[in-house]
């Protein structure tokens, strides 16, 4: 209960901070619109030549791009700015102030800063997703919708835990700002297409090393009539494993932190 109150307060504070920089929202919006426009122009070039890309229609890939943009928006709104702030704290030795607070350090570190502008990505992603779904011939029932919500949540959990693990390395290697770029590039580039089009080695890398497959392709599959029990169960199990592993790794890293004065 205490943790929930802390979470609520931090998110509220983050948003209050953000309304100070309203212009930022419009710049982020401009960025998202450009990103989506290029993605759609690219898609239209592909589907000028063919009706399906390994069985995926243009509309189905629009749904996938919507999911990708939405998750990218969530990462950009809370996760990335908070982790960036955390790395800065470790580098400067100011993490002590966070650790002495009477609340779970992982919660504070993960929610401490909010970039409100990036909400533009969540909104635009959701609109794109809805547009894709409305254009789809087959209708989506309760079963598909709930499967989608479950796999999407699991995907977001996996992405969050993956980023937390990358960030935790800061305890050993101080200058690591670039590490989040690993995720950004693989998620941003490879995540716009269904994972099934990539050759085996790349598919494996995008599933096990940088978990883009779980986060984007599996939720998209459950909205486009491709539900595969193995993958759905795999995603949920992976989310649980990631959650436990990243938490333990975080605590292990924390033990290594000696503070600024030590």
């Amino acid at each position, binding site marked *: 209960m205490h943790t929930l109150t802390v979470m609520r307060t931090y998110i509220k504070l983050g948003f209050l901070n953000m309304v100070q920089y309203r212009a930022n929202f419009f710049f982020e919006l401009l960025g998202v619109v450009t990103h989506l426009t290029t993605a759609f122009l690219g898609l239209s070039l592909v589907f000028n030549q063919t009706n399906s890309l390994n069985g995926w229609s243009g509309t189905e890939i629009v749904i996938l791009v919507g999911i990708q943009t939405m998750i990218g928006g969530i990462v950009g709104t809370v996760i990335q700015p908070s982790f960036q702030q955390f790395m800065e704290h470790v580098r400067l030795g100011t993490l002590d102030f966070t650790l002495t607070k009477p609340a779970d350090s992982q919660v504070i570190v993960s929610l401490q800063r909010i970039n409100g502008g990036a909400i533009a990505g969540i909104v635009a992603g959701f609109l794109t997703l809805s547009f894709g779904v409305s254009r789809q011939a087959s209708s989506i029932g309760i079963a598909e919708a709930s499967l989608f919500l479950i796999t999407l949540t699991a995907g977001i959990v996996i992405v969050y835990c993956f980023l937390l693990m990358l960030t935790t390395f800061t305890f050993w290697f101080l200058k690591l700002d670039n*590490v989040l770029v690993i995720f950004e590039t693989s998620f941003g*580039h490879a995540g716009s297409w269904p994972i099934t089009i990539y050759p085996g080695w790349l598919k494996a890398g995008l599933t096990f090393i940088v978990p883009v497959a779980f986060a984007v392709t599996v939720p998209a599959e459950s909205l486009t009539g491709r539900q595969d029990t193995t993958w759905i169960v795999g995603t949920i199990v992976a989310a649980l494993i990631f959650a436990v592993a990243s938490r333990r790794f975080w605590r292990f890293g924390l033990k290594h932190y000696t503070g600024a004065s030590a």
Partner: protein
Amino acid sequence: MEATPELRKFTFRDLARFYAGRFRIDLNLQIQYRGAIAIWLMGLILQPLVALVVWTTVAQNQGGNVSGFTTSEYAAYFIILMIVDNLTFTWVMYEFEYRIQTGQFSALLLRPVHPIHQDVTTNMSFKTLGLFGVIPAAIILSFAFSANYNASLLDIVVFLPALILAMALRFIFEWTLGLLAFWITRTSAVFQLYNSISFFLAGNIAPLWLFPESVQMLTFVLPFRWTVFFPVEVLLGRATVTSMLVGFGMQLLWLGIACVGLRYLWKLASSRYSAVGG
């Protein structure tokens, strides 16, 4: 602040020595950040790789041929593009925003050498290090996707000046655009827009021959085709003699425009600049 570094005060030999020395320093500086470079390289390789997979998949689905180009030619296109993109890439625009916001320009303006020279060597050192990742990746991907290279000796000979002109054009064009940071504070949004347009119209997402007729006409007039696509097309062995001549003509034309723009904007910018405490 009265500070307009004058290029003509230096002889060619002075500049050559400056370049050689600066390049060594920059190379050593960059090597300190090899982790950051490795991560940056990952993006540089992954982006064309994704496009390569998409288009070879389309070609395979269509029976091995799209718009008169085979699957292996699409593979070759994106592998060559990866190398050309690494060699023409700059991030001077972002550098400008940072320099203006942190006031670093003051120090650069006080030097007797025009700041563009140092940016050239920094950029070159980056590209050199990039090659250590891009070339092995190109070789591995060529085998993995059985890329088909058809360049004749003439194509290879023509490719070199086309590449050098593309490097010069993209660098000077983006350096000139970077000067906008003297007038606009939030330039990164403008640059992001520029990058997306450039990305699309330079052929990074799809080869330009797949574009609708009207867009293709547009690419002939704008600079982006000449900064990336043109050298790639030449090395792919798909450029006719006429299109090579048109290409060089357009590269020189845009290079001229960019140089004139650079001189004019630089004069305006450096006379406008006043740092805090300056």
